[in-house]
């Protein structure tokens, strides 16, 4: 973890760089420039950019996405790996189109998380950590999401769904396009 700030000339890459590099629409590039503009040091934008690449590349950092990030941020390919694997919201493997993240921490646990998890998994026929064969759903048990007062809850993508009941879960899942 180099504490040195990224020099502005491109570094030689000490790990194999994926051949293909992701390309993004002008709108996305503009969005990325917007983030880069916030910081005196390019590397600071690594997390915001990872979310964008993840969004644009089917929910995870695929090799072309990683190559893009290293190039855009002027860091080594392994720097992307070291950061990506530290943060639980950055996916280095594909995930379902809908990522259902059920909070399992204490307040939710005692307010009915097990029932919700059982219901969701039963409905989708998978267990936590798995993705449905059609690639539509991934279910994960995650740590406190700051909805303890409105437990139990889960997050689908970035959307909070709180005060869950099995009936409410069905409504939510049925409503998904």
């Amino acid at each position: 973890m180099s504490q040195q700030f990224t020099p502005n000339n491109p570094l030689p890459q000490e790990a194999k760089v994926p051949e293909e590099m992701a390309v993004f629409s002008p709108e996305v590039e503009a969005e990325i420039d917007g983030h880069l503009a916030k910081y005196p040091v390019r590397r600071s934008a690594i997390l915001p950019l990872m979310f964008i690449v993840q969004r644009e590349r089917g929910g995870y950092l695929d090799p072309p996405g990683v190559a893009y990030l290293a190039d855009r941020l002027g860091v080594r390919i392994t720097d992307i790996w070291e950061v990506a694997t530290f943060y639980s919201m950055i996916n280095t493997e594909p995930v379902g189109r809908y990522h259902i993240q059920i909070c399992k921490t204490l307040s939710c646990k005692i307010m009915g998380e097990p029932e919700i998890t059982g219901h969701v998994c039963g409905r989708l026929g998978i267990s936590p950590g798995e993705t449905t064969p059609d690639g539509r759903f991934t279910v994960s048990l995650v740590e406190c999401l700051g909805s303890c007062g409105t437990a139990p809850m889960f997050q689908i993508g970035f959307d909070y769904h709180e005060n869950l009941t099995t009936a409410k879960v069905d409504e939510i899942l049925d409503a998904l396009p």
Partner: protein
Amino acid sequence: MRIEAIGCEPLLLARFKSENSHTLEVARTYGAYDALKKVLDSMTPEQVIEEVKKSALRGRGGAGFPTGTKWSFVPKDSPKEKYVVCNADESEPGTFKDRYLMERDPHMLIEGMLIAAYALGSKVTYIYTRGEYRYLIDIMDRAIEEARAAGFVGKNILGSDFSCEVYTHTGAGAYICGEETALLNSLEGLRGHPRMKPPFPAVAGLYQSPTVVNNVETLSAVPVVITMGGEAYKALGTEKSGGTKLWSVSGHVNLPGVYELPMGYDDMEKFIMEDCGGIRGGKKLKAVIPGGSSVYIMPAEDIIGKDVRLDYEGLVVGGSMVGSGGFIVLDETVDVFESTKNLIEFYKHESCGWCTPCREGTDWLVKIFKRIAKGEGRPEDAQLILDLCDNIEGKSFCPLGDAAAWPIQSAIKKFPEDFKRHLAPLAAQAEEASVAAD
């Protein structure tokens, strides 16, 4: 979800009553940015810091460090950029107050950051928000744009020669990034490991420049302090901790929610049993974890009839800590072994892996708890667990290690029977059997 001020005028929650309190228009009707105007018109940076010192405002992120004092550590004469960073990583189990402050009153936070920036001579400020709170980042971004359009953010704020930017930054799922130095690493695009202290952020923080990291609630309270004056703010609370504080309440109460109480609110029992509507389904209170998960668990008998005062000193006397002010209320149905297992799993998942005791200790403890949960507990496990906790406590690189140890230590101490049942399953069964027999 109840959001209510009790025992005091709503200060932080003042604007929550009205619709669209997150818009500048509504916020202005409550005098948003008047404090900033006052500061720019009539106060020197030193006076601002003085006022905050007078207010006895203490950090609401968990450490409870006097905010004015922290600000005064920033070297005025340093040629480097200075940064104000808002800690909106709110990941402490049982804590969700910052979330509502940002959702319902983003302008209060922005104003607070601008005042802090003015006091500290900072031109750039960041709000580090946990990645899961994406919708709050959007709210903050919109609020910042509104404020910029109205001339509160950006170049020459309100015509003064004070210019300041406010930027949002996203985390990506790591509790440890709530620790201020880990947060700074994360903000620099590195892994979220804590940094060695010293140097403290106030001297060498973000990009090795002087930096103040403050919690959302702390910064949101700053405009209040400026508006009503340090003395008046302090008067609301106690000698050592002034003003009001938000408490997140969750678990088995009838009215979970965010409550604003004056510092020193007595007493804890009344708060839970009346203000929060008492325990659900008429059940009995078993325990409360009052400071977010990282503090000692308090059994009912330490609360009922003990009039525990709700402030930093009061809760210590009561046997725990304020922490982030997240009450997790447990009723009699809860098996404290289970609840403790749930928490240690949290700390194992969130241990950053930097230092030996925290990384290996939490991993080992989880393995033990899982084994016990499988019915393979051994009588000597309790001793082993306590010894492992002792080997982590006070020896880890950052306080997360302690945070993992404390709940376990207190749980075993205060609820031995809940553990005994699991640790000596056969003995316990035999006991029950014999009880049943006669």
